[in-house]
């Protein structure tokens, strides 16, 4: 059963740590991030506690999937070029990702997540949602 975005998924698979659980969700086609039930704080990358404050009451939430490009580079190698971006999710956490189907985009560009295989494993990538708005 799939939860609506923003709704908690209280239990993951028994015995899996946060890293393996995140990957297991991705393999099911779900982009899930952690949130502290008591404080509402989000965390990424997935961990056993909120860094700095230590809340362990973490539940998995389906990410809304909307974000803004915070920084971006294009790796230019003999085997080709690809961008590597840092994306700030609307939930307030940052992740590394790739903006697909473009060489690069302006910082501030709004992007939307989807899951696609990248180098043999399911990964969160982003499509451009709207042209860059500097912030």
């Amino acid at each position, binding site marked *: 059963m799939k939860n609506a975005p923003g709704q908690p998924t209280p239990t993951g698979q028994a015995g899996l740590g946060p890293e393996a659980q995140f990957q297991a969700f991705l393999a099911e086609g779900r982009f899930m991030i952690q949130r502290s039930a008591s404080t509402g704080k989000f965390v*990424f*990358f997935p961990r056993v506690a909120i860094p700095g404050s230590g809340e362990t009451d973490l539940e998995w939430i389906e990410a809304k999937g909307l974000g803004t490009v*915070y920084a971006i580079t294009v*790796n*230019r190698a003999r085997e080709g070029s690809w961008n590597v971006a840092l994306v700030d999710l609307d939930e307030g956490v940052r*992740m590394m990702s790739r903006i697909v189907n473009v060489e690069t985009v302006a*910082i501030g560009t709004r992007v939307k997540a989807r899951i696609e295989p990248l180098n043999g494993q399911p990964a969160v990538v982003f499509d451009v949602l709207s042209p860059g708005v500097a912030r």
Partner: protein
Amino acid sequence: MTRSLRGQSAIVGIGTAGMGEAPGRSGIEILAEAGLNALGDAGLRLSDVDGVFSASSAHAFPTTSVGEYLGLKPSFFDGTMVGGASFEMHLLQAAMALDAGLCKVALICYGSNQRTAGGRLVSMSEPQWHETPYQARHPITAYALAASRHMHQFGTTRAQMAEVAVAARAWANMNPDAFARGPLSIDDVLSSRMVSDPLSTRDCCLVTDGGAACVVVRADRAKDHPKPPIYLLGAGAAQWHRSIVTMPDLTVTAASESGARAFQMAKLKQSDVDLVMLYDAFTINTILFLEDLGFCPKGEGGRFVGGGRIAPGGELAVNTNGGGLSCVHPGMYGLFLIIEAVTQLRRQAGERQLKKVDVALCHGNGGHLATQITALLSTSATL
């Protein structure tokens, strides 16, 4: 009541080996030669060494590898590994160990043959699982991301970053030990091959061979050695993240804390510093660290380095050996900052010697703008 380490220890010997290219020699061979050179400079023998400090990209247990190779049985040793900044941390660790009486003669040493062994940066750094799918090519990807953000937020330009590389080259052209010498213009940097936007090949440090070492003793023993002692007046460390993903703000490094701590211990301010040695793995580093260490306001670093301000003849002497960009960068560069600072403070820097130099700042950077360690060194004039 805490006891300050200000002025309690001094560097009495420095040595280098295999600078640039050292074909046919291993990293530990280069390290050992540098160590022996530093001990000779200090008028000491191997048997005097009872403290060993080292970090390595090729040895899992560097202090045991060094101790075994040189036949040392140290009573104190520290292999703190925080990337290229490790050696500034070793300077602080050595000062503490000497002050506590845990050792009397500390040897800090490094050596690598990574240019002739493969020509690529060697690292034991493990991949970060949440970064892996995106094929980051660290370290350059991390630094390029920081540069992209600095440009976006403050209007910093590629030409301003190129000024950093051009200034470093101008200093290197006065240093016979520098690996990359010859003319280099802003246009040369701008037209060099793009590696990871916005950083081109000339925005990146060298990959060379090289070894370096320094000998540190208590200040009350420092005048027993042939060369004028160079005192450690202050040191401070800070680290905020491991992965570039979790660096809170890509335009502000933990140098803003490490520098403040070092200045506080040293009882000095920025205007007291005659020589600024910054870990310039990439051109953006110099700009970030000038800001975070308080030599210019945040966001102004690009404009600050313009017009040759940090080049020979400029207002502020920065990286007078030519830096990691043009002098030497054998994987980890931190110890070479100290070598140049001591060389300048001893007035042994030849053509590039600064006229007035009593205080030098060495700023080590480790990992992906992660670990920041600042040390302030001086002649006896400022002690």
